[in-house]
Structure formats: C-alpha cells, structure tokens
C-alpha cells in the first residue's frame, strides 16, 4: 500500500507524469470536506480512477447522508469490512499439519506483526468500507471508516440506504463488526449457531488446514510425473 498515510493533495502529487488532475473528483472531495469538516480523516484520489475518503467512526452515517444528499450518490453499491491483519497462515503453502507451531501461536505472531493499510489509511485492524454512486452524473465515492478495537461497533447505514441492511448483516457475521442501530443483525449466510467470523484473517480455512493443498503450484503434475515424484505424494497422503 504505497503512501498509505499520505493526505489527499500529496497523493495527487505523487501520481507520475500525465497531468494528475481530476476536477470532478476533487470537486466531490471539496464538497464532502465542506459538509463533514473535521470528520474526514484522510482521503485518496486517483485521477480518472476513484476517490477514497476515510471518515471518523462517529461520522460514518453522516458521511453517507452527505454523500447521498450533497453528492447525489443515491445508488447504494455495497458495504463490507476489511481485516487488515496479515494472514497468520499465509496461503497455506506449507502442509500446516506437520509443523510444530500451533494455530494459536501463528495467530499471536500475526497479531504482533505490522499491519498494512489501504488507500486513505487506517489505524485499526478492522475497517468498514462502502461505495455509493451517482447514477445521473456518473461519479462515485468509496467511503471508509475505522472500527474501534474495543467495541467493534460503527453506526448503521440502514436508515440512509435501505440496501445496506443485508450488507451489514453479512459484514457482521463475517467480521464480527456490530452496526449500531441496525434493526436486525441476524446472520445472513451462516447457520444460527455458527461460531467465529469466517472472513477474519485468524479464522483458519479449515479445508486447507485439514487437507493441505499445494495451492501455490499452478501446474498439476502429469500422471507420469506423479509416479516419479512418489515421495511427495506419499507425504501428502500421510498428512
């Protein structure tokens, strides 16, 4: 994540050659800044590509209202969460079964490791992000906000955009992020008694843990090669 902490004007300046201006998106940003003021923590503008705005947790719903009413972004696209913790298990390249390090240790190590953050930065492990679009003027904005580590709660959007109801339910079950004021935070996909939040990085992908898969190897060995490579095959069966 390049120049993650760079504020908007700098991010624009960082863009290489080719006139890094985008009047429409700068205008959008200016409007939002006017409306939200201090609530905007950071923003990132990629000319011709997109605008990312991070707001404070408290102003999360205000940002939605501002985007809807001031920017005309009446179309609700999506809302979801991100877990910025690096995955404790990598891509499960190694057969996890046979290593000495337990899952818990790996998770602890990953928690301690440096977190990255995306466009418009971020201070917490979890972030909520959403995109809204203006379908007449054809512009859009991606809004982000940090999720406080202690409460894991952000204000709901479901009164601003009706469609965010399901998206918030999904984010809640997948990341464990609570949405304050949401009418009905039941699980959407997962069964009622399901424990854990699958899209968190420390939630192991069980199928890969139980049966390691050489996912990083792109090419399957031909039948002949398998016979020649008998040792590896045997090890896998063993695992």
């Amino acid at each position: 994540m390049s120049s993650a902490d760079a504020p908007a004007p700098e991010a624009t300046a960082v863009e290489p050659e080719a006139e890094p201006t985008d009047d429409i998106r700068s205008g959008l940003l200016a409007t939002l800044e006017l409306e939200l003021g201090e609530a905007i923590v950071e923003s990132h503008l990629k000319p011709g590509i997109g605008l990312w705005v991070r707001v404070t947790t408290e102003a999360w719903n205000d940002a939605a209202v501002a985007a809807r009413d001031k920017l005309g972004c009446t179309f609700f696209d999506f809302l979801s969460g991100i877990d910025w913790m690096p995955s404790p298990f990598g891509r499960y390249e190694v057969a996890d079964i046979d290593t000495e390090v337990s899952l818990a240790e790996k998770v602890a190590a990953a928690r301690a490791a440096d977190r990255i953050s995306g466009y418009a930065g971020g201070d917490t492990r979890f972030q909520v992000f959403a995109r809204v679009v203006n379908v007449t003027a054809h512009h859009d904005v991606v809004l982000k906000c940090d999720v406080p580590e202690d409460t894991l709660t952000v204000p709901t959007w479901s009164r601003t955009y009706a469609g965010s109801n399901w998206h918030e339910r999904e984010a809640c079950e997948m990341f464990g992020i609570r949405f304050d004021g949401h009418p009905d935070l039941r699980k959407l996909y997962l069964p009622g008694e399901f424990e854990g939040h699958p899209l968190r990085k420390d939630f192991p992908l069980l199928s890969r843990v139980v049966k390691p898969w050489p996912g990083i190897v792109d090419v399957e060995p031909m039948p002949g090669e398998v016979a020649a490579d008998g040792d590896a095959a045997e090890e896998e069966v063993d695992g």
Partner: protein
Amino acid sequence: MTLTQRDELRAYAHHATDARVNVELETEGMTLNIGPQHPATHGTLRIVAKLDGEQVIAAEPITGYMHRGYEKLVEVRTWPQINTLVNRIDWVGSFSNEVPFILACEQLMEIEAPPRARAIRTILFELARIANLVLFAGDMALQLGAQTAAMYAFRDREYVLNLLESASGGRFHPNFDRIGGLKDDLPKGWIDDTRAALVKIREFCDEMDLLVTGNEIFEARTRGVGIIPADVALSYGLSGANLRASGIDWDLRRDGGISGLAYDDVDWKVWTHPDGDCFARYWVRLQEIREAAHITEQLLDKLPAGPIMAKVPRIVKVPAGEAYVETENPLGAMGFYVISAGDLGPFRVKIRTPSFNNISVASWVMRGVYVPDIVTILASLYFILGDIDR
C-alpha cells in the same frame, strides 16, 4: 499442530455443515415456507411468507444454503487461479463474471489488453449475456405457467453455449479471460457461426414477442405487479435491468468508463422502461437480448487484428493497491473490490454481486401481493443463486 487439535477442527467443520440446516422458523399465523427446494427459487433460496389467505403479509428471503465463501477462498489462491472460482458465481452467464475481476487486476497492474482481445472479450461478454437473458425470458414465462416458451429458451440458448464451447472449451464455465488478454484466439469459422446463431437469437426474441409479450394473461399477471419506484431501487442498490425498468438510465457498459471493453466502439442503445413492474423488467431484458445481438454483430464486423495478449509476466504479481471495477453483467452491476498487498494472491476481495442487492428488495416489494405474485416477482427480479450466496 497436534492430533487432537486436528480432530477438533474436523469436528468443528462437521458441525458447521450440520448446523446450517436448522434456522429457527417463526410460526405465527399461516407461514408458508417456499424453498429451499422449490421450483420457483431455481436453486436453494428460501422465502418465508406470512400469509393471510392468499395475501402476503410479510415475506423474507433467507439465503445461505449455498454459501461457498468465495471471499475467503480467493485469499488463499493466486491471481490466475481465482478466475476459475469466480466463474461459478453466476453460472448462467459465466464469462461475464471473469471480466470485472480481470479488469480490476489490470487496473492495478496498469496494463491494458490489446484491441483484439478487448473486442473478443466484449463479444463473449455479450454472448454470455444472451445465454443468461434468453434463459430468463423462458424462465419468466415458465414461472407464469407457459411451458412452451421455456423450451424454446433452452433450445436457442444452446446455439450460444455451443459458440462459447467452441471458443473456450467450456459451455458453462469458459475460464477464458486472462490478465492482459485472452487465453486463445477465436477458432476458425467462429465468426460465421456466431452470425448464424445471432439470427436464431433474434428469431427467439420475435417468437417471445408473439408467444408471451402481447399475451393478455401474461400482461395481466405482470403489469402493475411488484412495482419498485426509482428511489427504492436506488436505495436498495438494484442494478441492471431491474434498475432500468424503474426508469433509471444507468448502464455500466456506457457509463462505467471501463477501458478494457469495447462498448465505445459500437453504436447501441440503453433500454429503459418507466413502469418499474414485472412486465417492465421482462421487457427491458428482452430488448437487451436484441441489443446484445446488435452489439455483437457490429463487433464481429470490425474485429481488429493483432495479438490477443499483452505482455504479462509469467508469474503474476499485482502491485499493492486497491481497485474496484464494476461491469454491467447480465444480472446487473457486478464488481470486484480487489485489495492487493503486492503478493502472489489478493489480500482481500470483496465481490459485489448484483443478485444479492436485487433480491434484498424482495421483502419490501412482496408486502401485500398474492402468493402467485411471489413467483412472478422472483422471476422478474431474476436472480441466480450462486450470485446471491457466492
């Protein structure tokens, strides 16, 4: 990891699969449980409808019977491997699933597919749309009881599937799009075959007009049923034909500013309908089949020569950053929010599927309708289950 831990995890995984069967059902008044196995849900969607006689007091779609956790699975795969996975999201118009993901990767890598690849991509995209929407037209009629139209749909979809098969090898899951271009060039004679197939598709549309569109019963069943006003549609994030049927002129093929597809090179029209009812949604989609055939024909006429693959490193590493690309899929706006940490695979991918938003409006629009209208509304909102559950 010790043996007991492994057993624990196995038990956990087992428990997880078992537990999804038991979702508590409220029983208050007459509750009709439509699905998860029901002809109208073509898949495993469940609608819990509270009825007063034949009138629906409240209806709620319940999803998750086919949730495959793609957002988690893509995190352990490399960039090229994900293509196979996203193919399975909307399985009726598979090729169109690949495109937004590939485009998002291309945006981050700052490469662009050569013109020929872009044109072929667009052609296949439109063919996938035809395959998808032809089935919709047939299914819509079938849900209303007209069986013949459904059979015609299956018959004529075959022409398109054959084309996709001869181009890519896969009838349902082409897996043909690559970062920076396409897997292969088109086979010999494909262009003529496509032209012939498009004639059949046009005939199908005319047939549907004769058989279904003007039919009084069909109109009585669909006109004025399941009206979704524009502001509701926007607020729920309805997209594609569902949005255009509510009178909003918004098509990502034209308005999305997507550079990896060749829509700007051709002359076509976005169809809208002011009514916002089931008939409007059906009608808009039927016009879109014709429009897709029109677009494809123009692209075939001026298919540029040249390579089909840009210079892409053998082992794909996408630079760190975030990209969101949304394309106008047969079902609506489908987008991939790709977050890369500069690795062999993505850090996180948020898959925005059209059916998810489209079906979330169901409980709003089904209030007060009759039981048969549930079927009409579901059919006209048009969802593919894999596209809701991912």
